[in-house]
């Protein structure tokens, strides 16, 4: 049964379709353009779409975090890297060998097909009951109790990442001292 286009549910459906479009367009831009900076833009668009999907999956918190971390931090970082490493993009027009292009298409297509096939044909069992509603409060509770390991690991990973990035940047910059 399809809801009317102008009911709130129908509008939500339209927006969902738009979000899917945004995600896939972003993915296409991110992988198929020649200039890296456009790829990053595509990535950002894709993440905006993904954040919308998360919102539909009833977790606005993760959606916001997706925007904050991916668009605001990861994309900016990558854009920075591009600026530092390839400021003039002189050698953009490097030939991509047709072999790698077709290989990539085949691999990617096969992966997507396999995963999609598994997804559609899998027998997914809905749970009988939900023990909580997945709100931020519950999430915070379980993050600090059941899954506190994740919390700790994330903090260590981030710390290491910061130190590692500093060390690497320093080493690249100043070899002699």
């Amino acid at each position, binding site marked *: 049964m399809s809801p009317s286009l102008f009911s709130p549910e129908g509008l939500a459906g339209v927006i969902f379709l738009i979000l899917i479009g945004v995600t896939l367009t972003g993915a296409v831009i991110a992988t198929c353009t020649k200039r890296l900076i456009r790829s990053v833009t595509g990535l950002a668009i894709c993440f905006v779409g993904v954040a919308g999907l998360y919102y539909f999956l009833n977790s606005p918190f993760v959606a916001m975090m997706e925007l904050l971390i991916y668009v605001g931090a990861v994309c900016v970082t990558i854009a920075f890297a591009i600026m530092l490493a390839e*400021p003039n993009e002189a050698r953009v027009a490097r030939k991509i060998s047709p072999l790698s292009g077709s290989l990539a298409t085949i691999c990617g297509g096969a992966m997507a097909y396999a995963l999609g096939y598994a997804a559609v044909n899998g027998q997914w069992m809905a749970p009988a009951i939900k023990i909580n509603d997945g709100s931020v409060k519950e999430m915070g509770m379980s993050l600090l109790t059941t899954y506190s390991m994740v919390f700790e690991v994330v903090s260590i990973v981030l710390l290491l990442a910061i130190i590692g990035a500093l060390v690497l940047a320093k080493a690249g*910059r*100043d*070899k002699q*001292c």
Partner: protein
Amino acid sequence: MSTLLGQSQLQETFELNIGPQHPATHGVLRLKVTMDGEYIVKAEPVLGYIHRMHEKMGENRTWNKFWPNLGRLDYLSAIAYNHGYAGLVERAAGIEVPERAEYIRVITVELNRIQSHLLWFGAFVLDLGGFTPLMYAFDEREQILDLLESVTGSRLTYCYFRFGGVYNDIDDDFITGTRAFIKRFRPQIPMYHDLVTGNVILMERLVDIGHVSSEMCRKYGATGPVLRGSGVNFDIRKNEPYSVYPEFDFDVPVYTECDSMARYMVRMKEMEQSLRIIEQALDKIPDGPYIAEKVPKMIKPVKGDYHFAVEAARGTFSMRTVSDGTNQSYRMRLRSPTYSNLSLFEEASRGMLLADALAFMGSLDLVIPEMDR
């Protein structure tokens, strides 16, 4: 940073072209800057965009006809340049100047110096991103320009001095106006210090930035506030007295910090000292002719070299002429202070942040037409 800048083959450098039209250069100066990120590896000034060959003009005109050129060198302290030329030719031709004329000269030169420093102050803070002090400085500067206009007739490119005196006499209106200006301007200086000098942001940008040692000044021939900001007590008005300067009681502000702040402070203090000189001159000014009576129409100095130096707003302006006994100069050489002051920029700016280097350049107080001549 200097250790990092030492090995450049791995460095990621790029060239940045600042100018000839750029908000920070205040004129048509160009800087070819090689940058490493935000740091300057090498900054090479490129001059000559408004070169007008004043020296050749000096060779081709009679002594009298060279007057208007002086106002077009350093358009901000044009009267000091007038003074330099007047002194040079008077020395060469042996012309006596009446005392009143000398007093008038000193008053106008010092007014002009204040005006120049005010403009520099505004433009310097503008370089640092503060727009408002510029407007306040311009307000005061307008008063000076009005005063000078009422006596010289022009507002910027003065052509006021003549051999043996000045173009026309000052009147009582000018004297009362100048006194009123001094009274009005004195309390403004602490206001500037409150608004600008004490500001923590400005201090952060000026203190310990742009170090120029006295030895470096000597090697590069830097003079004026740059030299005095490096702790050298040298002022032509004191050390090589000309005109009636020995009769006045004034101090030469000297700061030993050698940084941009020191140069800034020197200029601010110099304004106060100029006010003192003007006050004394107004008190002491004698009556008498304002121009020597017997000035020959055709000036023919004795053959030989002559040299005369004055303290312009930016440093030592010295003129050297070679006379061959005719009524024209055989060779006229204008030594402009900022030319030498800027020549140390390339060395001093190495390893600086771009923003700091431009602030440092502002603290040198450049006037481009004077450099290019």
